[in-house]
């Protein structure tokens, strides 16, 4: 089972050396690492903006930075975290690395497109960074018209161009995943033998492909209006600024599922492995991913209940938004049921999975508040929303990403991370996260609007709690950063399958050879056949 290497074995990391061997690589595993480095940079950049935001909100007065600066801070935080960290995070790093291995392929279908997608990502990132350096942008990550198209005098075009460009990288990734999953599966690997990680990424890729172009055209239209004076959303010409919101949220609501679906895929893998059980209700979990992707496109209007959208449309969107809660609930119940009578190990990836379930449950349940029209009227654009989407995006997506990173780190690097530190990091992140964002639910219902630079005094205590939590959260994020780097040199060798996990990616050495498998594997059993493994051993 375990591959012993007497002499240095050729793997994807040592097959060639030099900067160019990385910058021109077509190997999906190396491209995944390129993405890992870039999105980590953006994560800490976005995090730095968050630190400044939380420090400013420590006191009710606007005393740390000017209002203009504060507005740029939350805008850059949102733009960078959403478009340059969360959306590419799990798909571009873990998905890129694992999908070919999980389906028993030598690479993705289009390796050159894969590399191109990283360059496009980098180019988009550069535009956004240049915009930030030249003074930033202050429209909010939502770029609402007519503020963005006419009134703002910051670097809207440069930033929007960055977002536009990075969209192409999403599209290319999506095409690559869809085609690979359809056409490159190993012999015997039928759809219902696929790991749930693959199902989740398939659903995610559909959103990439169907949604991203609509955001792209929305941005193009804003640019045409801003640069050339076209009349598209301009009320002075009879244009409707709300049309922009429709186009924007057609992508940006499903984008939330781009973030959470892959995390759900990670959690399915981790729970199955550490409970040593097949995921309960496999087909329901698999199809609920597709259901989320499909229904996710029908609900965007719940961002617009108080926008001046028609009352009838709001009711339709409210109804449809309720439906999307169901597949999410199905997943949570099935994960919980998977734990029943399992053999549960409490390693760090599993702690992240537990954290994910808890935080996603809260995020999902508060989503029902927002889908309920009359309650949303009150909490819309308050800190309740901020808390809700951070529970989904950070409590959900980032916990999933970190859990996945811990889980597959041995596979990616061939090294183990220090388990004690990892558990400490997971604990700090969980505690810090809740302390940061739970008070924001209370703030939101009290009525504190989002994007406020200064605020009435009575909101201060909860804001102080939130800032205190953020500092714990910040430390929590630094810990894995440090020990992952440490493990590259000092971590113990991992072996092919340190978790004794199922799945094709664990059947090849760590780090994997350049083309993943010595010969194409043939699949004879379903995913997560942990009990049959037991039977084999007698």
């Amino acid at each position, binding site marked *: 089972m375990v591959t012993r290497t007497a002499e240095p074995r050729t793997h994807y990391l040592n097959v060639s050396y030099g900067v160019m061997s990385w910058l021109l690589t077509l190997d999906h595993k190396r491209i995944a690492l390129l993405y890992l480095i870039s999105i980590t940079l953006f994560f800490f950049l976005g995090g730095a903006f968050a630190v400044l935001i939380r420090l400013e909100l420590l006191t009710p007065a606007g005393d740390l930075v000017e209002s203009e600066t504060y507005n740029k801070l939350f805008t850059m935080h949102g733009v960078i975290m959403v478009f340059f960290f969360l959306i590419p995070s799990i798909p571009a790093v873990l998905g890129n690395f694992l999908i070919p291995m999980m389906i028993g392929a030598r690479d993705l279908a289009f390796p050159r497109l894969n590399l191109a997608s990283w360059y496009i990502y980098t180019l988009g990132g550069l535009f956004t960074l240049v915009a930030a350096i030249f003074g930033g942008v202050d429209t909010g990550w939502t770029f609402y018209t007519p*503020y963005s198209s006419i009134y703002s005098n910051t670097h809207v075009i440069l930033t929007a161009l960055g977002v536009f460009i990075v969209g192409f990288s999403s599209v290319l990734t999506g095409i690559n995943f869809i085609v690979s999953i359809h056409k490159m599966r190993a012999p015997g690997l039928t759809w219902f033998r696929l790991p749930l990680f693959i199902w989740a990424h398939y659903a995610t890729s559909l959103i990439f492909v169907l949604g991203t172009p609509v955001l792209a055209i929305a941005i193009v239209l804003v640019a045409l209006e801003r640069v050339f004076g076209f009349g598209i959303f301009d009320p002075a010409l009879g244009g409707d600024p709300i049309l922009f919101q429709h186009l924007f949220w057609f992508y940006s609501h499903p984008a939330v599922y781009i973030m959470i679906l892959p995390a759900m895929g990670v959690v399915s893998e981790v729970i199955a492995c550490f409970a040593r059980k097949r995921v309960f209700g496999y087909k329901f979990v698999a199809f609920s991913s597709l259901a989320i992707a499909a229904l996710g496109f029908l609900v965007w209007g719940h961002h617009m209940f108080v926008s001046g959208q028609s009352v009838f449309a709001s009711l339709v969107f*409210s109804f449809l938004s309720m439906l999307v809660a169901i597949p999410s609930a199905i997943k949570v119940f099935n994960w*919980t049921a998977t734990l029943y009578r399992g053999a549960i190990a409490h390693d760090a990836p599993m702690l992240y999975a537990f954290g994910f379930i808890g935080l996603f449950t809260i995020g999902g349940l508060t989503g029902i508040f927002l889908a309920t029209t009359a309650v949303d*009227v*009150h909490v819309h654009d308050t800190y309740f929303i901020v808390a809700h989407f951070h529970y989904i995006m950070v409590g959900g997506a980032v916990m999933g990403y970190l859990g996945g990173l811990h889980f597959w780190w041995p596979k990616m690097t061939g090294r183990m991370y220090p388990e004690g530190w990892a558990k400490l990091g997971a604990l700090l992140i969980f505690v810090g996260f809740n302390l940061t964002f739970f008070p924001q639910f209370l703030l939101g219902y009290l009525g504190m609007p989002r994007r406020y630079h200064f605020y009435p005094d009575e909101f201060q205590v909860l804001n102080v709690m939130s800032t205190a939590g953020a500092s714990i959260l910040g430390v929590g994020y630094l810990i894995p950063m440090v020990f992952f780097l440490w493990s590259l040199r000092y971590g113990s060798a991992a072996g092919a399958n340190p978790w004794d996990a199922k799945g094709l990616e664990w059947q090849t050495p760590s780090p994997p050879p350049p083309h993943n498998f010595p010969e194409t594997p043939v699949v004879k059993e379903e995913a997560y056949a942990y009990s049959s493994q*037991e039977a084999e051993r007698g």
Partner: protein
Amino acid sequence: MSLGFPLFPEQASTVAGRVDALYFFLVAISVFFAGLIFILVAYFAIKYRRRPGRKQADPVPDHVGLELAWTLIPLGIVMVSFIWGARLFVTLSRPPADALEIAVVARQWMWKFQHPTGQREINELHVPIGRPVKLTMASEDVIHSFFVPAFRVKMDVVPGRYTTAWFEASRTGEYHLFCAEYCGAQHSGMTGRVVVLELAQYQQWLRGRIVAEPPEVVGERLFAQLGCNACHHPDRPQLAPFLEGVYGTQRLLVTGETVIADEAYLRQSILDPAAAVTAGYAPIMPSYRGRVTEEELSQLIAYIKSLEKIQTTRSP
């Protein structure tokens, strides 16, 4: 509150309690399901932890009945929430007919209000208790949002059109008014207060303000200054329709469609007369876009609306 800082907003409107009731229903649902999940996960994680003697899991077959249960039960619950919310939302969207009508103009970064009797306020709104108040809101620049947490009322103010909101204050006092839609540099400074007074105090407050002309009087003067009465005049029925009693009626358009002559229609007819011409008339009216401000526009509309009340004898 003993904590020294609030954890729950005041209820100062007739709908606040109803919104909160739904909110608490959802909180109860959330606590139940989140609690259920947390307890089960924690219980399973401990009871079935891996230990000597428990290296492998017990196989548990899938259970379609369970899947159906946790599909259908949550579905039922969210449908309750949808229907409950929808009914309340429709209430929130329909101002009562007898409401006190206040014109709101939002701009970077202030709120301007005008009472039906002409009094104007900036960043401060005085309203009587126990009387529905309807806000007809317009923006001079970007999107803003009128938000009074204590009333549980929020509505975006969108440039180029009217949006409306309404509330009926149920408790006297001063309450926060926020702009909830990000609107630029001083967004967080675009705040104010709503002062709820007893009816007598409100009337006293109205009397105490500098006597301004009621909006319909200013509107009437504008109507003459802008030359509207050159065509909209009983002597020239072939040129333009009478405006007496026009507000709130069904209008047949040249396209064959009918519209209700509400604020939005009157606004459109002043700014873009050609967009919806009343049947039987030629599209000869010039646009007044750029020639009237949002406030003048609301005064003109107030005048046209007032014609309904003044005019008692109607041509047959």
